């Protein structure tokens, strides 16, 4: 299939991305992020959820979350590459927000051909945030697995695990199993019978929780049977958005460490002089560039409906995941003692990268799936 010029990344997308970059550099430089999520530190901390809800409100007012909502539902109707560019900037800022979840929900809902889904997309365009609650207690990556049951009257019982930014999102998009298969449902955060039990997580820029459902009434957006299809169809887009976040965070780690290597003097030389620092930083740059190019390519493939979009998106996530671990590891190591402290901003991105690498499957998982596509299945 012929791909569009420039990954379909045109003037509108560039303008949106540039405004996002300015927004974060004005509103959430790393020192402010640290003050927000790490400064008031409790060593025996409970499950924190520190974020700036006002900043998020501004983001929705700027139309970022409306970007990929179809024009028919009141959105801007931009391609996935626009969301990818925004996610890359958010990752570069370590932005604590329900942005990834809202993008994920957007692409899932776009695959649900129901009025309720269209209405939910409209709500997103108007600023409502969402997150997915589609993972069971064992962290299964199979869209068909869920610990939530839906009864005939559309009420949910059970639990959803590893729900990202659960205390930031306004609504949840839940997969639940009914008699005829898996359907998708929306529940408001303050719904009766819903409990949000926060996890204590390592990442200081996110929050995560277990949702408990006790006969909770829900809005059906995909009927039983159609839910799994919609989730699977949205997987390539979700992988792209998450990979872009990791690319942005990786670039922050690279540039911050390079800056440190330019200025920190040891043995009478800036440490960037030493190839033991210089060459791994170059290798990290290569890993980031690979992840970035694969991500934009995969997003473009999604936008044009290419057949191999899942293969290309898995490549992007596999590369982004291994890069993510490397970026954090080298940034801490090359910052030396300082990099090992809570005070240093590096730790926030280090942890965000570790968290991101396992979301939606790590590098190993995706490479195993890719092997089937690229080499052929293992003989029985």
């Amino acid at each position, binding site marked *: 299939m012929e791909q569009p010029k420039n990954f379909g990344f045109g003037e509108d997308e560039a303008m949106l991305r540039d405004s996002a970059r300015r927004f974060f550099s004005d509103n959430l430089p790393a020192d402010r992020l640290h003050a927000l999520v790490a400064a008031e*530190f409790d*060593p*025996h*901390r409970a*499950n924190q959820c520190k974020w700036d809800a006002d900043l998020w409100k501004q983001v929705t007012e700027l139309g970022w979350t409306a970007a990929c909502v179809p024009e028919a539902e009141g959105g801007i109707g931009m391609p996935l590459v626009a969301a990818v560019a925004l996610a890359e900037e958010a990752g570069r800022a370590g932005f604590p927000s329900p942005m990834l979840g809202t993008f994920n929900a957007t692409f899932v809902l776009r695959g649900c051909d129901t009025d309720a889904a269209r209405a939910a997309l409209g709500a997103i365009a108007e600023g409502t945030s969402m997150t997915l609650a589609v*993972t069971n207690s*064992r*962290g*299964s*990556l*199979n869209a068909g*697995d869920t610990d939530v049951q839906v009864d005939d009257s559309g009420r949910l019982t059970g639990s959803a*695990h*590893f729900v990202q930014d659960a205390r930031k999102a306004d609504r949840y998009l839940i997969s639940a199993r009914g008699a005829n298969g898996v359907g998708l449902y929306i529940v408001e955060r303050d719904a009766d019978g819903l409990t949000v039990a926060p*996890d*204590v*997580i*390592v*990442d200081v820029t996110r929050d*995560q929780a277990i949702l408990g459902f006790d006969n909770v009434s829900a809005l059906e957006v995909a009927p039983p049977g159609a839910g799994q299809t919609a989730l699977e169809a949205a997987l390539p887009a979700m992988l792209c958005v998450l990979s872009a976040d990791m690319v942005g965070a990786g670039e922050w780690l690279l540039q911050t460490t390079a800056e440190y290597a330019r200025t*920190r003097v*040891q*043995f*009478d030389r800036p440490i960037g002089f*030493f190839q*033991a*620092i210089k060459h791994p930083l170059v290798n990290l740059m290569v890993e980031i560039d690979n992840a970035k190019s694969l991500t934009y390519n995969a997003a473009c493939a999604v936008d044009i409906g290419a057949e191999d979009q899942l293969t290309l998106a898995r490549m992007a996530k596999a590369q982004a995941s291994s890069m993510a*671990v490397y970026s954090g*590891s080298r940034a*801490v*190591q090359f910052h*030396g*003692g300082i*990099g*090992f*402290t*809570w*005070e*240093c901003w*590096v*730790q926030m991105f*280090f942890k965000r990268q*570790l*968290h991101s*690498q*396992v*979301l939606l*499957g*790590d*590098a*190993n*998982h995706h*490479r*195993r799936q890719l092997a089937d596509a690229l080499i052929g299945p293992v003989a029985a």
Partner: protein
Amino acid sequence: MSDNQASDTPEQAEFRARAREWLAANHPGRPPLRLPQGALEVSDPHALEWLRSWQKAAYDAGLVGCDYPTQVGGGGRTNCQTVANQEMFAAKTPYLVNVIGLGMGAPTVFFHAQEEMKQQWLPKLFSGEEIWCQGFSEPGAGSDLANQQTFAERDGDNWIINGHKVWTTLAHFASWMILLCRTSKDDKYNGLSYFVVPIKDAIGRGVTVRPLIKMTGETGFNEVLFDGLVIPDSYRLDEVGAGWKVAMTTLAHERNAGQMITPASGGMPLDEGSGVSTNDPASLARLARNQLRDGKRAADDEALRDEIVKMFIRSEAFRQNRRRTRVPELRDHAQRIPLQSKMIVTELQQDMAELALRIQGLGSTLSFTDDKAPDAGQWGLAYMNTFGITIAGGTNEIQRNILGERVLGLAKTK
């Protein structure tokens, strides 16, 4: 498999038998509280006291400081510390808490202090009654040890000390610090001198100790500020201007390449239930057998299996390398394997912990303070803490320089 016994001298054999017997009867059992992964992370005073009483018992039984002369509180034996360490490890004892004192303080004091000061300092160091810390790192110095800015100025029979040290592990409990500082600005290397300085007794009188928080959220190390601390000249080690030479004694012992073997106890699993040991690839295999990934056991994923086996191989190689260092006929260069040891073990631990996180999948997102975390969240904690050891004591980048220069004779990178 162990060939420890096979090579024992008569003195070692007799000592080993007594040690084994004593340990069988005197293991302190499980602690009444949760201990951190290593002595360097101890921040709870209750944990300190429990560990200190274990060290005292081991010292009284002759298992700590065995090879030091009796005059300075040692056991007066020959090559018995190795035996003691082997037996304590085999008996799965808790670790020794005065780790900086034993590993760096004791040999430095022993080889460079005045006789009466050795007799004052060493017995309480061995017993753990007095905790020691170390003052090498400074905010601007990093791996360049000779770049010390903390200054000691002579004032008659005293020295007045001003400066700022960081990463001073255990300083919040320490009675004494071994301190490298500058006594002359004219010469980078010959302008350094080495002291033992009081910490606990001098707090508020020229010494301030402030905790630093690690990226894990744990404390355990500190920064120490000196503001006109006055100490007597008898606290000086070796000559004025000989600080670099003394520091080399400290570093050689830190890298397990010094003359005195460091007393080391350990082997007690931190978590009786899980049996997690972040040093042991068998823990990884167990984790993989217990962990589901995408509906399959992680232990059934061949690519992960391959990664786990690589850890087994590296771990076994490390053990066998140590064994080979005791066979002069199978060594190419006396320092070749000993100088590798810190670098290898720290990178192995880092890679094992990183692999464990990938085996855990989404479970790895949970903090050790979350009860649901697989293996009590110890792998994530271990992963982050390994950066302490790949950085501290000369980064592993510096270790590679040292190996390339000393063992392979390559030109100095400076």
